[in-house]
């Protein structure tokens, strides 16, 4: 007994000598970065912007002082930011620690924004590969590409509804489930697709809206002219172009398309919706369709994806022929023309909506193969199962063959519900029934 006790004592002595809580760090000794922005540097390789939370200003708990809430016009006190130029991400963190009192911790970073030029020259992919080694970068952090500088984008974010700024990013990038205009491109997905032999990566597109007054709005900014639309639809914009003024300047809309390490193009909001539909990640969103009977009128439906899409891929003369079937459900939200689509002309609407979507999706598919040469939908992964071994598949060189692909799209739209209205009654006036203009 004595001996055991003595031994334990000795062991405890060594332990106390050895220990010292090497890794213990108090929460309040660290500052938590919630967003990282990376730009091309002027004087160095990178310009890094760190946006960190200032919890004391969040007005949480019973702590008095701090003041929270109040704040100046357009100023949010709950976030601080810092921009510096550095050779690499980690060295940048070291440099930041020289001016921030608390140690910088990245384990709660929600989003990482790269500027467009970094994405285009392939540095972005190198950087993401480099940081996945670090334990602090979460695999479900969102990767986004900023039109213009990432610094500007992060500085434009001044969340005022959320006491906790990290919540802003989390909610915003999961908003694709009800807008369909971006994809929540997590670091893990991005990274895997970059290395994949059967799919290519996309990243959410963000931007800063610089408009200060409604006078600056113009149709030319949208992609409507290319689509031969007199008026842009809601999805015809890229991030930063929306005709909108307001407190929050930062926007997320569209996707950046990558081919290998380089960004090769941008998809606008509508195309992003189509991308989500083809990949099966589409949740539900309000979608505007032209009225098939009365031109210049619109029908807005709440469109849902009812089943996962199916793909049929075959090889015709060594060229992939890809057939996509998409099944959607719709609820009428608004019928401007007052025509009774609910009861009488439902079929007409469904057929025209199908045709409209098919055209859009086909346009997108052709664009990816002809313009971007990039299989962002992962058709290659579907086709992979035809092969028996990895070497056969690798030698097939799918990504190279994709640019010659041809496409067939079949969309099936079924209207299920009509909202609160079940049929439109005509409007009455002194001239009797008013026909819609």
């Amino acid at each position, binding site marked *: 007994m004595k001996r055991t006790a003595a*031994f334990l004592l*000795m*062991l405890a002595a*060594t332990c106390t*000598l*050895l220990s010292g809580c090497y890794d213990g760090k108090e929460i309040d000794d660290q500052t938590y970065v919630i967003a990282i922005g990376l730009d091309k540097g002027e004087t160095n390789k990178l310009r890094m912007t760190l946006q960190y939370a200032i919890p004391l200003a969040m007005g949480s708990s019973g702590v008095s002082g701090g003041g929270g809430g109040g704040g100046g016009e357009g100023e949010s006190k709950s976030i601080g930011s810092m921009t510096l130029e550095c050779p690499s991400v980690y060295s940048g963190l070291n440099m930041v620690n020289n001016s921030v009192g608390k140690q910088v911790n990245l384990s709660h970073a929600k989003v990482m924004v790269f500027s467009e030029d970094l994405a285009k020259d392939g540095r972005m992919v190198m950087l993401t590969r480099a940081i996945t080694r670090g334990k602090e970068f979460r695999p479900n952090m969102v990767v986004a590409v900023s039109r213009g500088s990432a610094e500007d984008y992060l500085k434009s974010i001044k969340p005022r509804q959320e006491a906790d700024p990290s919540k802003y990013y989390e909610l915003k990038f999961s908003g694709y489930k009800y807008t369909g205009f971006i994809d929540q491109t997590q670091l893990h997905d991005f990274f895997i697709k970059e290395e994949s032999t059967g799919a290519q990566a996309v990243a959410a597109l963000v931007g800063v809206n610089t408009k200060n007054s409604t006078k600056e709005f113009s149709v030319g900014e949208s992609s409507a002219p290319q689509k031969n639309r007199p008026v842009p639809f809601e999805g015809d914009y890229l991030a930063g172009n929306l005709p909108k003024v307001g407190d929050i300047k930062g926007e997320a809309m569209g996707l950046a398309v990558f081919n290998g390490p380089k960004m090769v193009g941008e998809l606008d909001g509508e195309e992003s919706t189509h991308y989500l539909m083809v990949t099966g990640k589409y949740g539900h969103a309000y979608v505007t369709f032209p009225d098939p009977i009365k031109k210049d009128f619109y029908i807005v439906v709440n469109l849902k994806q009812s089943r996962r899409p199916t793909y049929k891929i075959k090889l015709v003369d060594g060229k992939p022929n890809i057939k996509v079937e998409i099944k959607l459900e719709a609820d009428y939200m608004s019928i401007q023309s007052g025509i009774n689509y609910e009861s009488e002309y439902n079929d007409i609407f469904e057929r025209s909506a199908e045709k409209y979507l098919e055209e859009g999706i086909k346009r997108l598919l052709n664009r990816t193969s002809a313009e971007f040469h990039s299989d962002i939908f992962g058709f290659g992964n579907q086709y992979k199962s035809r092969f028996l071994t990895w070497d056969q598949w690798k030698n097939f060189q799918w990504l190279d063959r994709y640019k010659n692909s041809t496409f067939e799209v079949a969309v099936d739209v079924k209207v299920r519900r009509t909202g609160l209205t079940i049929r439109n009654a005509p409007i009455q006036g002194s001239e009797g029934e008013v026909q819609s203009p």
Partner: protein
Amino acid sequence: MITVDMLVAFIILVWVFVYTVSYGVWTWKKKNRLGAVMIFLLALSALALPLYTMLFRY
């Protein structure tokens, strides 16, 4: 360079060595010669291996 924790570790090692050897002696007295020799070897290696690691590998 000898630090305090090395010293403590050294004391523990010597202690364990002495203790194990005494068990070997006890076994020897019980007429288990081979077992005793193996215990001596064990004691020696328990002394030598960590010293080697401590002094030369680190």
